[in-house]
């Protein structure tokens, strides 16, 4: 009996999840705890490991489908696979760059994986089946599941099957799907390519500063996110679950909070020098990259201790002042962003903070965050400066009341004691909720942050 793999419940208030990508396909061997698929829920994106070792018999829920928790999503026939495949085989783990240039079409698949060619007909058939290569695979290398009829139509109509979202069993592209596509293409190039469940006009690329988290341009470990590629010009593509969530959350925040922004310029000479001096040592001794983000986080935490209103939330006409400082660190992902939370920053040493930030940022990119990792933030830091922007005006991450945006760090001429000096400068922007924080408090908070950073005196080891 194959083992049923069910949609897990990823948190108390979560009742459904979207399988964003299958990392294995039917017929693949899978080892226990090896990732089977990527799951996206309201709260977290993560990889779901296989509960048993065996062969992935059948996929019941196609990528892109949202299903309730406890739904059977696939079956794994138990029994140890011949050899546990090395990680990365049968589905590149998201976020990890492929080691070698992809060669999947040429690589000989394991026995039984390749669909049998059509049987040789008794009489010569005028047109031998020769599915065109581009139709065979989706953009991400997954095999497009389509019947012989659909492939024939695709060939005749010159349709790239990876452009069509199947509505048949297991996400198969049905005859109706491709005929509708061909029809719509005739009607006009701008007609929906994918019959999306929800109306899905992708927002015109919002400037990063408009989107809180897209500011995590520079994640702690310093890797830049891949260029987003959601579709081709002229197409209408449905939002990914993450994108839809971001959209909803951002608008909700703008509606909820009275956003005000204040901008400070900070001289990072001391930190710059400190970091230059210590970073190699840091890497050697702790195997950690010493990042600017941690300095900003530590400075924010120091300032919050003095101005606790910044670390609060609103409940009706009450202001809930939080005892703990749980710092959200926005991390950009190729297809969106996520804000993992570093807990109890008030108790952490600089080293502990750096370790925690590196950890969540790394796991965010590997989609290995747990629900707990993304809940409970009380204040957020984001990094819009990575592409050279001077600063951004971040949107508050609800239900928090303030967000610190870190602009680009750049050497600039500054006037010091009537002399012009070259200093590494950075703009810090605080987005705050005027319902609870007035400008004076916000500026005092920022002055404190600036002071901590410019006159850094905290131990970092």
């Amino acid at each position, binding site marked *: 009996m194959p083992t049923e793999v069910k949609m897990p419940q990823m948190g108390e208030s979560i009742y459904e999840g979207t399988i964003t990508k299958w990392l294995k396909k039917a017929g693949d061997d899978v080892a226990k705890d090896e990732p089977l698929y990527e799951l996206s829920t309201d709260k977290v994106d993560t990889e779901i490991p296989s509960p048993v070792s065996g062969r992935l018999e059948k996929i019941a829920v196609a990528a892109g489908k949202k299903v309730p928790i406890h739904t059977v999503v696939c079956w794994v026939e138990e029994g140890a696979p011949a050899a546990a495949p090395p990680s990365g085989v049968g589905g590149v783990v998201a976020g990890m760059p492929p080691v070698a240039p992809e060669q999947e079409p040429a690589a000989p698949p394991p026995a039984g994986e390749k669909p049998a060619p059509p*049987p040789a007909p008794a009489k010569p058939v005028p047109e031998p089946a020769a599915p065109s290569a581009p139709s065979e695979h989706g953009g991400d290398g997954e095999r497009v599941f389509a*019947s*012989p009829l659909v492939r024939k139509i695709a060939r005749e109509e010159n349709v790239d099957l990876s452009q069509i979202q199947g509505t048949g069993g297991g996400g198969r592209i049905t005859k109706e799907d491709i005929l509708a596509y061909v029809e719509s293409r005739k009607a006009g190039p701008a007609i929906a390519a994918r019959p999306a469940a929800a109306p899905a006009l992708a927002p015109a690329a919002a400037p990063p500063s408009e989107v809180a988290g897209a500011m995590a341009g520079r994640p702690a470990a310093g890797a830049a996110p891949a260029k987003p590629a959601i579709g081709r010009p002229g197409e209408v593509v449905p939002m990914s679950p993450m994108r839809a969530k971001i959209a909803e959350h951002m608008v909700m925040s703008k509606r909820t909070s009275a956003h005000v922004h204040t901008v400070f310029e900070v001289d990072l000479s001391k930190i710059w020098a400190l970091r230059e001096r210590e970073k190699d040592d840091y890497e050697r001794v702790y195997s950690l990259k010493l990042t600017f983000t941690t300095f900003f986080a530590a400075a924010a935490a120091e300032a919050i201790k003095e101005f606790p209103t910044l670390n609060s939330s609103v409940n009706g006409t009450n202001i809930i002042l939080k005892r703990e400082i749980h710092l959200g660190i926005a991390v950009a992902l190729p297809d969106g962003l996520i804000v993992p939370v570093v807990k109890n920053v008030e108790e952490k040493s600089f080293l502990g903070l750096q370790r925690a930030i590196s950890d969540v940022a790394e796991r965010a990119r590997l989609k290995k965050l747990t629900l707990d990792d993304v809940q409970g933030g009380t204040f957020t830091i984001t990094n819009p400066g990575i592409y050279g922007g001077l600063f951004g005006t971040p949107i508050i991450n609800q239900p928090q009341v303030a967000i610190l945006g870190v602009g680009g760090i750049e050497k600039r001429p500054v006037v010091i004691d009537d002399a012009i000096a070259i200093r590494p400068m950075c703009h810090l922007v605080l987005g705050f909720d005027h319902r609870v924080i007035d400008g004076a408090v916000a500026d005092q908070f920022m002055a404190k942050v600036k002071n901590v950073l410019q006159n850094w005196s905290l131990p970092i080891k």
Partner: protein
Amino acid sequence: MPHVTFLDAITQALREEMERDSKVILMGEDIGAYGGAFGVTRGLRERFGADRVMDTPLAELALVGAAIGCSYLGLRPVVEFQFADFISSGFDQIVNFAATSRYRWGVGVPLVLRGPWGGGVRAGMFHSRCMEMWFVHTPGIKVVVPGTVRDARGLLKSSIRDGDPVLYLEHKYLYRRLKDDLPDQEELTPIGKADVALEGKDLTIVTYGAMRTACLEAARELERDGIRPEVVDLRTLVPLDRAAVIESVRKTNKLLIVHEDTRTGGIAGEIAVSVCEEAFEDLDGPILRVTAPDTPVPYAPTLEDYFLPRAEDVVKAVRKLAKY
């Protein structure tokens, strides 16, 4: 109110052909004085005499051998098996002699072998089986399997006029259950031509014999879901009307084959491969089949009901295929 039963139609065909051609004779066990186990030949001895409606010993091998001999002498014998199951006792004469005669020396054997087949009447494993595939697999014999009152008459008349051995199978479940009105004028249903029993668009159901009725019942049920299957009744297994099946598949792009015969080696396999060979690129789904399981026909009523494919089994398979 239709009044002609499936059984009546067979009797009518025999009578008409005997009236038309004095060379047509009937041979079989208890077909004369008794009128046959099911009464198909009742009244024919009185009408045509004992010379043309002959009772034979309970010895199928001798019976078939004698009939082949008669055919060489210019007669057109129609042999009745009390139950088609017992045709196995005459097997050697049929497959080695009658079936090869034209190939061996150019002499056809205008012989009709007819008998009641199939289950559903609580008759147990020796009186219920589907044995058509033994002969489908034997080149030189035509296999005719009517599923309507009209085809029962029209196909038997064509079989009697055919110049080669024809196995004509009468589903005993239909004998008195199936009723229809028949036109007065003579009708000859061509051997080797399938019949589109119901036009549809969503998928093709290919079937024959008593399963035609089950498939049409399923189609009525499916209509409520908005699924419109096309039902193709093969009517003849040899020669097989592949062209009709493929034409329908090209239209609907999906195929379900339903037969009462057991699964392995049933006609479904032959049809499925034929479609793959000639219409692979017209398929928008897997070819599925609904059949009896690979066991003898059970005697216990509950088991027989389970064994036989039913309309609800067809509905289930169609839903699956339609959704695919």
